[in-house]
């Protein structure tokens, strides 16, 4: 006697992105912590020293958050106007920030009042940074100039006036105290050397430059502006390496993951894209609720912090191994498991006489009903809300099985308004899915046959039937258009294909 063979659930190929190492890595973050700031978050910078606090510049304030706190550890509020570009020094002791009022302020991280004020710019300062020797500050301003300042006596050292538009971004070299790079709205990225009077390399980005980033080795430079992200080889004198165009709005921020293998770009189109730095292919994509202005990654990718135009700061922390272990441990402590396993792991000894118990095979609920030929009940089970929405392929498999048994009509018939509307809901939801259409067409025809007499009695069912009709008409038009396109493509391919001679022989002289 053979056992009942359960209904085969067709496995459909997963559409959409494939599961890769990257998706697993970037999905391994907890649900984001969202913090409302006072205005659009323009800049986020992580402190280079542990515990890796980060400074968030939003409106007229700079907040410093600890790695796990949701409340700011510290805030700097002594700005007269909108603050820009709060950055830590490499020892994490000092913080510099520009301001709309053209004054650059230097803070002690533990203090409250500005240690130094650098006055000299005539317009808003959007770029501030420390040089690698820790004694100088680089600033870039909307007055088209960028300057180097001495920290101890707050004096201006050099002024560069090479840009012809606002300077909005820049970065100093971590390896050389004299090198720094600025990006400007005049579409250029310039590399300056403090030992000479003017820029050393000029690269044309093609769009207003919003963000620049240096690789840890400082051989490669990444610039973002407009919809493009471009990579330049500095060692070859600023030769363009790659141009990436994966966003459909302006790219506002760039970041490198800690091991330098992945490059992240954030854009006004609300996406953060992750590129592999070996082939510059997009390997992952994050979606956010609003346009993104700033993005930063904690060392070792412990958290991803994103600031958006709607003044929300989103912090995602990485799930750590201990957490998951803890959960597993909790599961092991459950008593029910031991109850289930009890006696099952007993290994019979040599002389033991084994009395085997028939193994009770587990069948899904709809299979149990199918085994008893309870067709209507099986369909009801398969149409339960959870299955219907989460696993439509199960519902499909049951409908298919009923059709194969020739009892689909019996199963569909005899339903009340609620049951029928449930059925129609499922039809409307899945009718145009190419994988399901062949079976659902038969089912839909049967439903119309069975229930045509009750049309007009229930407004709910009538509405759903109209929706179904609408859906079918739309789908027909769509298919027609597709066929037209296919026809056009065919003619194009046929005309472009080279003609080839095939040796022909053996014309049958058969007798």
């Amino acid at each position, binding site marked *: *006697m*053979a*056992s*009942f*063979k*359960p*209904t*085969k659930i*067709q496995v459909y190929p997963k559409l959409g992105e*494939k*599961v*890769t*190492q990257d998706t*697993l890595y970037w999905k391994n973050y907890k649900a984001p912590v969202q913090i409302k700031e006072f205005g659009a978050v323009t800049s986020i910078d992580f402190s280079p020293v542990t515990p890796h606090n980060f400074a968030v510049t939003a409106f007229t304030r700079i907040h410093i958050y600890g790695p796990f706190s949701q409340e700011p550890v510290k805030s700097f509020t002594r700005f007269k106007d909108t603050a820009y570009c709060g950055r830590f020094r490499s020892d994490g002791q000092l913080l510099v920030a520009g301001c709309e009022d053209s004054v650059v302020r230097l803070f002690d991280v533990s203090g409250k009042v500005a240690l130094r004020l650098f006055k000299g710019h005539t317009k808003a300062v959007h770029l501030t940074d420390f040089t690698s020797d820790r004694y100088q500050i680089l600033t870039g301003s909307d007055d088209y100039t960028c300057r180097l300042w001495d920290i101890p006596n707050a004096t201006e050292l050099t002024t560069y006036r090479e840009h012809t538009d606002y300077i909005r971004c820049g970065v100093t070299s971590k390896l050389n105290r004299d090198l720094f790079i600025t990006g400007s709205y005049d579409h250029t990225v310039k590399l300056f050397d403090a030992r000479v009077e003017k820029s050393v390399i000029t690269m044309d980005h093609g769009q207003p430059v919003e963000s620049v980033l240096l690789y840890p080795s400082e051989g490669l430079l990444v610039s973002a502006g407009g919809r493009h992200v471009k990579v330049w080889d500095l060692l070859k004198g600023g030769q363009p390496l790659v141009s990436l165009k994966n966003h459909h709005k302006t790219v506002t921020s760039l970041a490198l993951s800690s091991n330098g293998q992945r490059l992240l770009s954030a854009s006004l189109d609300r996406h953060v894209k992750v590129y592999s730095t070996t082939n510059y292919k997009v390997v992952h994509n994050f979606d956010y609720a609003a346009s993104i202005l700033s993005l930063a990654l904690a060392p070792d990718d412990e958290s991803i912090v994103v600031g958006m135009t709607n003044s929300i700061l989103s912090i995602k922390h990485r799930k750590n191994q201990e957490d998951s272990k803890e959960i597993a441990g909790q599961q092991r402590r459950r008593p029910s498991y031991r109850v289930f396993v009890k006696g099952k792991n007993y290994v019979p000894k040599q002389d033991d006489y084994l009395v085997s118990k028939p193994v009770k095979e587990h069948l899904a609920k709809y299979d149990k009903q*199918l*085994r008893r030929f309870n067709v209507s009940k099986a369909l009801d089970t398969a149409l339960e809300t959870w299955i219907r929405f989460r696993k439509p392929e199960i519902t499909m498999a049951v409908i298919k*099985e009923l*059709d*194969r*048994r*020739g009892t689909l009509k019996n199963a569909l018939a005899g339903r009340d308004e609620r049951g029928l509307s449930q059925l129609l809901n499922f039809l409307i939801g899945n009718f145009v899915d190419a994988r399901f259409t*062949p*079976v659902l*067409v*038969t089912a839909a025809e049967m439903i119309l046959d069975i229930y045509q007499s009750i049309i007009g009695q229930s407004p709910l069912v009538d509405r759903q039937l109209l929706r179904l009709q609408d859906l079918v008409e739309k789908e027909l038009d769509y298919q027609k258009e597709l066929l037209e396109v296919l026809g056009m493509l065919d003619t194009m391919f046929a005309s472009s294909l080279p003609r080839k001679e*095939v*040796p*022909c*022989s*053996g*014309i*049958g*002289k*058969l*007798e």
Partner: protein
Amino acid sequence: MVEHGDIRVVHCGGSKLNFRDPVITHDSRFLLCASGEAVKVFSTSTEECIHELRGHTGLVTGVLLRPSNHLQVYSSSLDGTVRLWDFTDGILIKTCVIGYPIYSFYASAKHENIFVFAERFQLVAVHLPQSGDQLVEARELSAVLSGVNPNPAAIAFGRGGEFIASVNDLQLEVYFFKKQKSYRFFLKEDNKKGGWNTFTCVACHPKDDCIATGHEDGKIRLWRNFNHKKEYTYSTLHWHHSAVSSLCFTPEGTNLLSGGVESVLIQWRYKQESERDFLPRLGAAITHITVSPDGSLFCTSHSDNKITIIQSCVKVSAVIQGLVKGDSIRTDLMMDPRSKALVLNGKPGHLQFYSLQRDKLLYNLDIVQQEYIHESGLQQFEVVKAAFDASGLWLATVEERHQKAAELELNLKLWAFDEQTQSFVLNTTISAPHDAQITAMSFRQTADSQTTLLVSTSKDGHFKAWQLAAPAHTEDYIQSVNCPSWLCDFVGAYHGLVPECCSFSADGSLLAVAFQEVVTVWSPATWELTFFFFSPPSISDLCFGRLSCSKYLLGTTASNLLCCWNLLTCSCKTSPCIKVLSTQNFFCDSLNRFISLFLSFLLSVFVFKPSEPRPLFSRKAVCSGKVTQAVFAPREEMLESCEESSQWLNRSQLYFLTQQMDLMTFTTKAEEDRLLASSKQLVIDDSVAMTPFYLLLGKHRQQQQEHRDSDSSLWAERTALPQTSASIKELLQTPAHVLPSTSYLCSMFVQSLLISVSDARSAHAEEEMESEKEEEDSEEEMESSRSKPELVAAATESDAPALTKAQARELRRVRKLDHSWLAGLLDS
């Protein structure tokens, strides 16, 4: 040794087991069933076939235990004879010639006669003469009933033979032997609900006056009080939804068993009919139900050529499965390259693997993997195509379901051979691989299995190449399953014509696809069309030559031509094109260079070499009925035949399947002789259960047999002395607890070695008396301890010298003497 190339057609298995109801013996150890022209004796515990009772020259139509002797069995046949057999030893005892073809027959303990259903729808009583002759003629015939149903289930004896009940159409007829009177009961043509009242089967209660009848609409009626014309009553039981095909009461009459198309065995409690036991999912429609005389075993025959043995607690205990006859063999016959088994459609949705050597079903591979609904008129999935690759590692199957309203459902499945389970495991399922039916499938036949390629052609005008996608990007992607799967590699078409068949060349470098009348040849490496041939009528089959003939491409056309193209010169070789009447089938030998051809109307077979236009072998009217399929099966060992006409049988054998699902093959005479000899040697008692001990001894025995074969001359010498072997047998067949101690025997053998007496004249009387005694005491132990003594006999015979009769006598005398002193002597 020169062999004569006398090629003949022999039957080699695959007959029906479910033609008539089987019989279980009184001790419930054996099951007898009619199978083709023989009666097969199966063991109910091991499912093995123990004997084949051969002798009938026509289809066997019935098997019955002899009511007066439960160790003997009657069998009837269409050749007009009833034969009496001893089924434990497989010996024909008596043949009784009746003279008319017998369609079914019945017997009852109360009657001397047996009842025979003969021509003209008559039931005839036949008196079998009680003479000791081997061949007797029965001439005393008397008609009992007329107008009976030819279905054997439609007649039954009641109350140990007091009356006989027969159903036909809408009429139940009960004939009482004592009163010599018959009563007839009629049912109305139609019920209210359009039910179908026709009787299908009948069974009588063994103790009670009750007749159970089965009906076309699934009802069972229990008739009582039927010895009155008017006052009869009946009650109705209804569970079956289609015709009841078999009914049976248990010997005590406590239960009624019924079965039908639903393949559910139902046990009704007699007089408490609301209580039922079910045994569902028996596999196929039940055709017959029988119960063993002691009621401990039930057995059901099924339409898929299967007999299921069921314990009375409604639990399946054994399954005897023959070659399954599907509705149609759409996959053709194939050989599994690994197990050398014949593969074809079996049960619905299954492929069966059938061992040709052992004439036994190896296993069924479930292709469709769906619950089979036993209901007539349902469109089920059918396996329509299957193909093996050269190494037997991959199996491709196509299943389809064609519904009237909906479109065609097609699935292409690829199965990988799993070394651990020794079976095929599903690797890839491709649903809807083509838009229309698949016409042909072929694997690339290369030795290196690294780049396996499958080509399928379809009526949608395309052929597709499927390739095993190597798991190259596991580094990048984490796949849900790590094993590689099959993907479509190439889609080809040729001017919108429909491809009919495809074939790969022997080295896998060329693919030939026939598009109606155009044969295109592609190179699978680049998927370029290299050249094409044109032959006006459309090509129906295509094949590349093998080995030395690999330069030839052969095809059969719709206009009955066999064409052969030479691929080197790109020309149609006109010489091998012979005009034949109707080329129905055409089969290619994978090992040899030979092609065989079956002509359906003429029923003849031709065997060609591709290089020669003249057929190597031809035979007309190979069997009665149409030959639908044939296959070349490679031989395990090569034959050495010098004769040219039988050379094609050297390396492989041609098997073909008749419409009755009998497997036939061509053999040479020499081979047949050899087979016969080997089958004689292999007569062992299979009734012994398969215990580890048995396996151990069995192996030992086989080795001995081989040993014996090797020095056959010595063996022949020994068999020439029957007396000695008899005496030793006598000695050895005496049970161990009766035998004297081993020291006795030892001394006895020593004595026999020392004294050399050549007394040829011996006392016959004593010998006979002794042999009688031997029979007496060995009869009981024979069955249980047969294999063991024989084994010992073989062992001792090989190292002990032959004993003369005088020695044996001496031996017996010695046995009776007190030799304890000698034992003590030997010990010291």
